[in-house]
């Protein structure tokens, strides 16, 4: 594993101060599982990365652990995708900063179930 996805490996930048409110859109099945309607708003401390957002999401909604990232490896599940600002961020490093528009709350971070039959 080249990039740390797990909460234990995530390191907040020491210069980042305060919390930011991030908007997250869950796929329908995970909204049902977490018993939420519409967007989720999360306070994320430190640098706003995909890893930090998912850590905050799983801390608030523990029932989502293992449904987006593998429990053991922390890797994104194969049929889950991460989008924001019209970009597919699924293959971006988990510790890379998310776009400013996501960090500022102007745009949501989208967790998407890949299109597949069944």
């Amino acid at each position, binding site marked *: 594993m080249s990039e740390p996805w797990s909460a234990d490996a995530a390191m907040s930048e020491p210069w980042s101060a305060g919390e930011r409110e991030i908007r997250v859109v869950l796929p329908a099945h995970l909204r049902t*599982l977490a018993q939420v309607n519409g967007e989720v708003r999360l306070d994320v401390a430190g640098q706003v990365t995909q890893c930090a957002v998912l850590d905050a999401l799983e801390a608030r909604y523990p029932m989502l652990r293992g449904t*987006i990232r593998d429990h053991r490896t922390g890797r994104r599940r194969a049929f889950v995708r991460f989008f924001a600002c019209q970009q597919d961020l699924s293959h971006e490093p988990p510790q890379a900063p998310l776009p400013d528009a996501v960090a500022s709350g102007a745009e949501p971070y989208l967790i998407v179930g890949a299109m597949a039959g069944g």
Partner: protein
Amino acid sequence: MSDIRVLVGTRKGAFVLSSDGKREKWEVSGPHFPGWEIYHVKGSPADQDRLYASQSSGWFGQVIQRSDDGGASWAPVGNEFSYDGTPGTHQWYDGTPHPWEFARVWHLEPSPDDPDTVYAGVEDAGLFRSTDGGQHWRELPGLRGHRSGPSWQPGAGGMCLHTIILDPSSPGRMFAAISAAGAFRSDDAGQTWRPVNHGLQSEGIPDPDAEVGHCVHRIAMHPSRPSVLYMQKHWDVMRSDDAGESWHEVSGNLPTDFGFPIDVHAHEPETIYVVPITSDSHHFPPEGKLRVYRSRTGGDEWEPLTRGLPQEHCYVNVLRDAMAVDSLDDCGIYFGTTGGQVYASADAGDTWEPIVRDLPAVLSVEVQTLR
């Protein structure tokens, strides 16, 4: 008279079917967890309102749901199934080593005397236990760690641990069955295991005395006679009279001895039920006739049960966990099909009626006889 609750897992959700003891009028609740595959739902014998459900999805993985009110409401509990230590490898279809990878929970077996203790049989084959109502799961590694483990291979449906039987008269004794490794027994509450497959003959295994490699589809036991086991193997219906030490075939006059479920009458330990399926390449009943076969002699002599079941143009399958019995005086038998029907018989199989006809494909059926 006791009420009946039938717990149905399907490809697209769970359903709870309820009736009084007459079993004539049914209330249907569901779908619970719509859109998710529900491999199994089972109630605790120690607390009839405590239910466990295995919910899974190709997108979002495994979730375990628990109800403390008989299925009226549910809450997710723990879903982390981590193999003990370094998982190692089993054999892949091509004979190469393949890492053990958790895929899903096939079967949940609650303890007979503690509502918070429940066992989970998973794919890739392993046995887990929770003692806190499903919040945390720990593997019982002695099964997967048996010296034969690296030689186990998956069946066509994956390498699943699908059967868990807890011997009510001997608390340390348990049975587990794996496709396609075979049957295993523990006499020390799951710490150590050994294969119990002597007498099984499996086409495709060159060694007629192979210790493992048998595609066992289901095992059933009557609680009053725990040394007698019945098995539906890939092909062959088998019986053991010595707690699995040896098996002999009891297919007798069945039209085909391929099938998936097998179950035992609640009050007659020698009365057993199977659903013959044409073959492993034709997963539907022979001649388009859906027939349950009953033996009142513990095997060998079988009679077809057809009244109320479709006897033409029927090409559904009945999966391994999709048959169950209630414990009313007139024993009820239930089974679900891949066509979405759940059939019930309130007279031990003599006559059948559908409770529902159009559910998603049925993966599992369990019954609770409510006190």
